[in-house]
């Protein structure tokens, strides 16, 4: 799809009708796969991701194991049909970079010292990409870790803010990401008001950057609330026979 004439119209509405500070409809479900130790499915509008966690388990290869804590591995990967133009099989450089920044965010909050010599493997699979796949992926990975019973200091909530038509917007969709002036994925451990993932692609003034962070925090607070709800929902479900 080619660049729309305007990314924000005269009424302040974005290409999908949202206001600048509005999140897309978000859906979260915890425990969607049977064989992994923990899993979660997250949707941010048209972006759909699944995350799964295996661990703590034996580290492979063994010589990579650490004597005093677990190693956390992370793989961010997109299916071939998640994007408009088929993505060939195999890991692209982008997927490798995103795997790293997602891992580093998760490592920050997980209590890895509880599992010496073990590995915790986190897999994020993007089945449909419409902007903000790494932030949706990280949000899902955090839920999957909690579902797997991995002890953590906090959940991680993430969202991308950006600049389109000179304005700061929250939760970029694919069009805005493609044709906007800046894209800034932000992840936080909200309990500690600290940033665990931060990147910028594009250009912003110092003032825009600061306002962008504040806007991200606003979105993150809401996403964090939805995460806590999704986790509690999973464990408070009672069997239909009970009713």
């Amino acid at each position, binding site marked *: 799809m080619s660049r729309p004439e305007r990314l924000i119209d005269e009424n302040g509405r974005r290409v999908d009708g949202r206001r600048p500070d509005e999140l897309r409809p978000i859906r979260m479900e915890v425990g969607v*796969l*049977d*064989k*992994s130790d923990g*899993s979660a499915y997250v949707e941010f509008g*048209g972006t*759909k991701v*699944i*995350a*799964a966690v*295996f661990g703590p*388990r034996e580290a*492979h290869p063994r010589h990579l194991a650490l004597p005093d804590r677990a190693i956390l591995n992370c*793989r961010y*990967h997109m*299916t*071939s*049909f*998640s*994007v*408009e133009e*088929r993505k060939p*099989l*195999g890991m692209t450089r982008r997927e490798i970079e995103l795997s790293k920044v997602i891992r580093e965010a998760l490592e920050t909050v997980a209590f890895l010292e509880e599992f010496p010599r073990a590995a915790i*493997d986190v*897999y994020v*699979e993007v*089945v*449909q*990409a*419409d902007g903000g796949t790494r932030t949706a992926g990280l949000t899902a990975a955090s839920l999957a870790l909690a579902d797997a019973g991995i002890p953590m200091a906090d959940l991680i909530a993430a969202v991308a803010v950006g600049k389109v038509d000179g304005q700061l917007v929250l939760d970029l969709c694919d069009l805005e990401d493609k044709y906007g002036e800046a894209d800034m994925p932000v992840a936080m451990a909200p309990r500690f008001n600290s940033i665990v993932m931060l990147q910028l692609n594009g250009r912003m003034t110092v003032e825009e950057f600061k306002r962008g962070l504040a806007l991200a925090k606003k979105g993150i607070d809401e996403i964090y609330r939805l995460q806590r709800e999704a986790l509690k929902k999973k464990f408070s479900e009672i069997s239909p026979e009970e009713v």
Partner: protein
Amino acid sequence: MALAPKKDLTAKIMRSKIYSLLLQDRRIDGRKPTDLRPIKIETGLLSKAEGSALVSMGSTKILTGIKVEVGAPFPDRPDEGTFTVNAELLPLASASFEPGPPDERGIELARVVDRSLREGGVLDLKKLCLIEGERVYVLFIDIYVLDYDGNYFDPSLISALAALATAKLPRYGVVDGKLQKTGEYFTPEIRSLPFTVMVGVIGEKFLLDPQLEEEKVLDVSLVMGADEKGNITCVQKNSPGQVPLELMDSIVDVAIEKTGEIRRKFLQEVPVKLVESP
């Protein structure tokens, strides 16, 4: 070179238990030996894929997507569209799947599904030609195993067929010698529905659609496929081990019966344009 994949440690008592249950026509999950697990099919779930299907057989879950491009035909088949099948055993699906390029199991899966589709004559590839000798539809059928509780073969084929049967391909017209999308879409005709059943052998007994715990203790397994006309469309012995020749007749009979069952379920769940093939 075929590097043997890491073997799961199996408890010997499970093999004796599963075998002794089989002698009583029973399995650990309550099924009878030829019972299949419940099959669920969902199609059209992904907006960026021209076709998609999520299929579960028991706890095993497979997601298939179809991407369509326009490209050159093979030189020896200038008037036919082309398709390739790829499969990935995602590390999400099982503790025994490692990240990385498809290993021999993923490649085998892709090629077995490919053969069922190709030799089964599922698609009329001549109808997927745009400009003979120059431009044809190129279909990518990409299969992802999301959750593995035994037998990824059968649900992978089901999901590939479901995705094809509900795919929406863009129509092209020729304007000034160039191909242009007309804005319309069409669903490819499906000329055959060849399904497979995975058969696991223990001693002189066999079972269908093994779940993971059963797969671990099988002596040998094979995949057998049949179409609606009763033709065998696929055979793949997919593990080491011996298949007693005297079992083959019963296996063939059961395969034809049970692929028929899958076909009935498929026709109930999927709006497919099934066309008679010549």
